[in-house]
C-alpha cells in the first residue's frame, strides 16, 4: 500500500517536474536543430530535418569566430579571478575566524555590506577609468574578485571554525612562521571547502552578465553572456542560431553540475544558512 503510494507520488512528481522544468530545455534543444524558417515559427515540434551541426558551425564562425573569443575571455576571467579568490578569501576567513579584534570586527561588517548591497556602478566605472582599468580584462578580473569576496570568505570562515586551533599552535611551537602555518598546515586542510568554492564561484562568474555589460564593453572583450545578449538583437530572425548559442552556453554548467553536484549543494546551503 505505502509502496504503491510512494511510487505514484514519485511518478506524478516526475511528470510535473518534466513538464515544468525540463520542457524549456527540450525546447531550446529542438529550436537549435531547426532551419531558419522553421525556428521562426517558434513551435514546440521536432525539426523536419536536423540541422544541428550546420547551426553549430554557423554560430561558431559567426562574426569572425566571436563565440570562440568569448569562451576564451570568459574562461580566462573565471579561472584567474577564482584562483585569486581562493587564496585571498581563505587568508581573510582564517584570520577573521581565529582572531577576534577591532580589525576583524570591521571586516565582518564590510563583508555583510558586500553580501547585501548592489555595487555603485557608475562611480566604479569612473574610478576604473581614472586608474586605466576600464574595458580591460585586468579590471574585470579585479571587479569579480571584489564582488565575490564576501561570499567566498563566509564559506571559508565557517569551515575554518571546524579545524582545531591545536594544529596552529603545534606548528607554532615547532617554530613555523604565521605564513608557514597558513600555507603549509591550514590551506591543505581546506581542500573540501575549496573545491566547493571553486565550483560555486566559477559558475557565478561564468554566468555573470551585469559585470561585463558595465565594465567590459567592446567587441574584443566580449564574454559568453554578452554574445547571447548581442545575438538577441542581431539574430532577431535567426532563432535557430540564437538557441544554438543558448545551448552552448548551458553546456558548461551542466557538465560541472553532473560532476560536482554534491559540492554545489554543500556550497549553496552552507553559504546561505551562515550568510
Amino acid at each position: 500500500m505505502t509502496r504503491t503510494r510512494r511510487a505514484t507520488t514519485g511518478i506524478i512528481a516526475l511528470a510535473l517536474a518534466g513538464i515544468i522544468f525540463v520542457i524549456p530545455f527540450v525546447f531550446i534543444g529542438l529550436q537549435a536543430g531547426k532551419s531558419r524558417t522553421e525556428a521562426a515559427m517558434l513551435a514546440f515540434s521536432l525539426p523536419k530535418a536536423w540541422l544541428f551541426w550546420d547551426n553549430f558551425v554557423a554560430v561558431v564562425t559567426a562574426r569572425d569566430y566571436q563565440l570562440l573569443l568569448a569562451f576564451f575571455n570568459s574562461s580566462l576571467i573565471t579561472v584567474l579571478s577564482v584562483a585569486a579568490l581562493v587564496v585571498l578569501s581563505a587568508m581573510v576567513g582564517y584570520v577573521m575566524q581565529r582572531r577576534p579584534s577591532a580589525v576583524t570586527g570591521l571586516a565582518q561588517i564590510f563583508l555583510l555590506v558586500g553580501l547585501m548591497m548592489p555595487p555603485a556602478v557608475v562611480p566604479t566605472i569612473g574610478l576604473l577609468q581614472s586608474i586605466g582599468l576600464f574595458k580591460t580584462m585586468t579590471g574585470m578580473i579585479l571587479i569579480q574578485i571584489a564582488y565575490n569576496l564576501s561570499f567566498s570568505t563566509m564559506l571559508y570562515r565557517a569551515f575554518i571554525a571546524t579545524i582545531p586551533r591545536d594544529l596552529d599552535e603545534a606548528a607554532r611551537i615547532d617554530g613555523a612562521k604565521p605564513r608557514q602555518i597558513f600555507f603549509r598546515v591550514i590551506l591543505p586542510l581546506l581542500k573540501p571547502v575549496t573545491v566547493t568554492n571553486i565550483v560555486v564561484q566559477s559558475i557565478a562568474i561564468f554566468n555573470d552578465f551585469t559585470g561585463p555589460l558595465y565594465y567590459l564593453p567592446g567587441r574584443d572583450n566580449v564574454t559568453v553572456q554578452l554574445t547571447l545578449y548581442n545575438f538577441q538583437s542581431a539574430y532577431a530572425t535567426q532563432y535557430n542560431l540564437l538557441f544554438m548559442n543558448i545551448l552552448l552556453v548551458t553546456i558548461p554548467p551542466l557538465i560541472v553540475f553532473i560532476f560536482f553536484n554534491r559540492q554545489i549543494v554543500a556550497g549553496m546551503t552552507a553559504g546561505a544558512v551562515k550568510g
Partner: protein
Amino acid sequence: MPRLHKDKMRTDIMARIAQTISRSDSKATAETPDITERTAAGGETTRRRRPSPYPHWFLLPAAIIYTVLFLVPTATSFWYSMTRWDLKTATFIGFENFHQFFSEPFLVQGLVNTLIYAALTSAMKTVCGLGLAVLLTSDIVARGLLRAIVFFPVLVSTIGVGIAFTVMMHPTRGVFNVALASVGVAGPGWLTDPALALFSVALVDLWKGVGLATLIFIAGLSAISPDYYEAARIDGATRLQQFRRITLPLVRPATVTVVTLSLIGGLRSFDLIWAMTRGGPGFASDVIASVIYKQYQAGFYGLSTAGNVILFLLISVIILPLTVWFQRREVEQ
C-alpha cells in the same frame, strides 16, 4: 579596546603554551608583551615583540581590492548622486536628482515595480520552495533525480533562460499560448500586456530560483529529528497538524534565510528583466536596476548614481529591520 583584545589573546596563547611550565613562570612570560608594547609605542624597536600567529596583514591584499573597487565607489556614490556628472567634472546640484526620481512618473513606477517584484518573487519562492522541499524529503521514488531537475535551472545562464522564455511567451506563436489554445483558452500577451509583463518575468524568476530555496529548505528539514513526528503520530496528530506544529516552527532558520536572500535578490534584480522586456512595454516592467542602466546609457550619470543610492537605502531600510525582527522573534521563542 584593540590593545586589550590583543593582550588578552596573547596571554591566552601564552598560558596554553606554558601549561607544563610552573605558575610563576607563566605569569612572568605573560607580562613581557606589556612592556614591549609600551616600548613599541615609544618608537623603539619592535623586534622583541612577539607577533600574533594570525597577522592582520593577511587581510591586506583582499582589503585593498575590496576597498578600491567596492567600498570607495559605494561611498563616493553618495556625493555623485548629488551632482550633474559627465565622469570628468561633477557639478553639485543638491537633491535635484532625487527630486527628479520621485517626480517623474516612469521613475516612480520603477521604484514601485521593484517593491512588487521583490515581495512577489520572495513570497513565491518561500512557499513553493518549502512545498517542494517537503515533497523531496518525503519517501518517494526518484527523489535524487527530482532534486537535480528542480535545482539545475539555478546554474543556467539567466540571459539564456530569459531569451528562451521570451520566445515561449510569444503572444500568438509561443508554446504557452499554443498550449492554452489547444484546450480552448485564449492566452494573454504575457510580455506585451503592460499589466502582466512584470508578473510574467516574476514567474520565470520563480522557475529559475525556486531550486535554491528548495535546497535550503531541504537542508533545514533534514535537521529536524524524526522523533518529533513519531511522537506526534503516536499522539494522533494529522499530517496537517504535524506540518503546522512541528515542521513550520523548526524550519524557521531556513525560512529566514530564504526570505532574506530572495528579497535582496529581488530588489537588485536586473538580468532577467533586461533579457525579457528591457523594462517594457513602455516602462511597465522597469525596476530600479534597469532604470540605473538606462540612465547610464543615456549619459545621465548623476541620475543613474542617485538610483543606485536609492537602491542602497531601500535595501537597508527593508533588510535591516527585517533581520532585527527575525532575531527578536527567535529570542522570544
